[in-house]
């Protein structure tokens, strides 16, 4: 009997854990928006009630859309409930957005909370998300957003789209609508479409056989390359160039494959070797692009990253001007300088334009003198 009870004693903890699991069967708490509210339909067609006055937006991990998209689409930093961590604040201080909206850097309220684990995975920081006092959360079908929506907290998902620009345009409309400035998103989208249309009219149609073969790549081994199924591909198509990686899959490639591609032009990612260092490397000397000095650091602070809607047509024009200098007027400096004027009233200085063009490292490359100050 004693032995039996001793053996049975080992089972008791398992039964207890089993009983604790039953607590999960309790009905979930449900949030409801009380008081005045307005309804916004999100990217998945779901109506979401948002309390008035709006208490600000928070962006969660996953969709690739963040606080900067709200700034670009709605020009309303006061509609943000949180932006990020102290480290994010330091990074933001080096970006041009901090020059357009300098008051944001002084607003401690925006930088007290973590940016909901953007870099660490899909489902982090649920407790922190709940601790935030926000009017609406943006996200996708995973991460904290999924839980927040499940609980009835105003959470809006973005609409899926074929390419990055269309996705951003839909996201801009949704964000600006939530922020109460839907007209501002339309202005942004119109500016984006106009930029593409003007470029297409000036560039004309480049016959496929005459299109240059272009490679966008990083400079550390294994070499990161922008393959055809990368979100960057539509920009190459709009610039009427061919992606030299056609036929390859996988974003990491070895030097031999890159040598075998032998592109006409190489665009290096912003962080990495400079074009001068790249061209001096004996490994690459045999390449057509290196022999012709057609290696450039890609336009912009985060060159090679996905641009916002304001920057996208300018980036495409820059690629086209580098590759087809005879087809386009040299208006790049003016385009860069003026791009934030219509919507933000911010004119970039000549030094800022130089920095965006990476003149310090690109001037040794073929034809780049067309981008220097007059």
């Amino acid at each position: 009997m004693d032995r039996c009870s001793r053996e049975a004693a080992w089972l008791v903890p398992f039964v207890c854990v089993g009983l604790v699991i039953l607590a999960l069967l309790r009905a979930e708490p449900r949030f409801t928006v009380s008081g005045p509210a307005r309804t916004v339909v999100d990217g998945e067609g779901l109506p979401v009630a948002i309390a008035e006055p709006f208490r600000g937006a928070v962006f969660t991990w996953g969709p690739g859309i963040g606080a900067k998209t709200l700034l670009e689409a709605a020009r309303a930093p006061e509609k943000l409930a949180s932006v990020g961590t102290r480290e994010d604040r330091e990074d933001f201080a080096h970006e041009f957005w901090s020059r357009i909206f300098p008051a944001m850097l002084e607003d401690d309220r925006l930088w007290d909370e973590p940016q909901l684990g953007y870099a660490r995975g899909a489902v982090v920081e649920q407790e922190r998300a709940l601790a935030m006092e926000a009017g609406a959360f943006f996200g996708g079908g995973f991460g904290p957003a999924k839980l927040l929506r499940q609980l009835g907290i105003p959470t809006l998902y973005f609409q899926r789209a074929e390419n990055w620009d269309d996705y951003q345009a839909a996201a801009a409309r949704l964000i600006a609508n939530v922020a109460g400035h839907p007209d501002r998103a339309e202005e942004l989208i119109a500016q984006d479409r106009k930029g593409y249309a003007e470029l297409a009219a000036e560039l004309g149609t480049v016959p496929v056989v005459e299109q240059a073969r272009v490679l966008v790549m990083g400079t550390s081994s294994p070499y990161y390359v922008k393959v055809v199924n990368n979100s960057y591909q539509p920009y190459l198509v709009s610039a009427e160039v061919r992606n030299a990686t056609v036929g390859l899959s996988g974003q990491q490639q070895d030097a031999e494959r890159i040598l075998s591609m032998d592109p006409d032009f190489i665009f290096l990612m912003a962080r990495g070797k400079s074009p001068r260092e790249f061209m001096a490397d004996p490994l690459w000397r045999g390449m057509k692009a290196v022999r012709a000095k057609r290696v450039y650091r890609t336009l912009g602070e985060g060159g090679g990253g996905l641009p916002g809607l304001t920057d996208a047509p300018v980036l495409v024009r820059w690629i086209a001007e580098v590759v087809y200098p005879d087809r386009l007027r040299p208006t790049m400096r003016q385009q860069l300088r003026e791009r934030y004027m219509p919507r933000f009233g911010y004119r970039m200085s000549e030094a800022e334009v130089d920095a965006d063009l990476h003149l310090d490292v690109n001037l040794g490359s073929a034809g780049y003198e067309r981008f220097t100050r007059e």
Partner: protein
Amino acid sequence: MNSSSRGHYLPWLLGLAVLLGIIGSLLIGAYPMSFSKAALIISHLAWPGPLPNNPAWDIKEQTVVQIIRLPRVLLATLSGMGLGMAGAALQGVMRNPLVGPDLVGVTSGAAFGGVLGMLFSLSPVAIIGTACFGGLAAMLLTFGLAGLARNGGNGMALILAGVFVGAFFIALVGLIQFVASDAQLPGMVYWLLGSFIGADPQKVYLAAIPTLVGGALLMTLRWRINLLSLGDLDAASLGVDVRWLRWAIIAIVSLIVGAQVSVAGVIGWVGLVVPHLARMLVGPDHRRLLPASALLGGLFVLGLDDLTRTVVSGEVPVGVLSALVGTPFICFLFWKTQTRGWSDA
């Protein structure tokens, strides 16, 4: 306390420690909430009646305890219990203290299934399904490969087959990471590192059913595992169908580990380290070693998860912490047993 009275009280002490561990873990977290308020919510959750209409807490606080912490704490406990018990059972049937659940290939197979689901952007529930399916596929491959060996029922053949199958699936995991997009890769890497973030009731049920049912089956087989640890010939002479028993235990272990990986990613070392701790506490008799390993495993993983969500700034994956703690421990055991033998550990 002599060994007899210790044996009498130990199940109660370990059980109490697990329950206190669960309650204590529900009290702590990133959300700013007092212990007393959390304790009040826990007491109301434990009470079978309906919750009050106007509770003394904020709805967010109830959400944190009920929807975020409770599934996470239970998932960590169940995963630790499953891995600890699986490791003890495997070490018993293989008569090898260096065997862990990772060695039968299930972990790698489940990892492959999970990342495959992520590559095709499947829903979280579907990803759990593909991970579980991957674990089962790896187990069947391991069994099939071992069956091709001349002495398929031999433990070494199964282990070798598990190593081969595991290596194959690890390569497939690498291939998927290679072709994954920039947006998919961080999520995959984080999941593979092992974590209980994002635990929900579905995941708890998925871990609980194989762990508790498989655990119960292992408990009914624990006397036979004792016989098996005498050696195949001695066990067979005592009427044990050695081949059937070994395969049955490995199948149960595979199910438990496959379910755990599918819901929480790869959490290594627990199945290897915890049985050694339990052996120090209750000795090599599997009647006590199996449940003790389960309870210690639950406590061990729960403690690591508490550490990562409170003390450590940022969510360090539990799989990383378990390796950081497990490696020095197993090195210490290795050093200690060089002169005394593993059985004395």
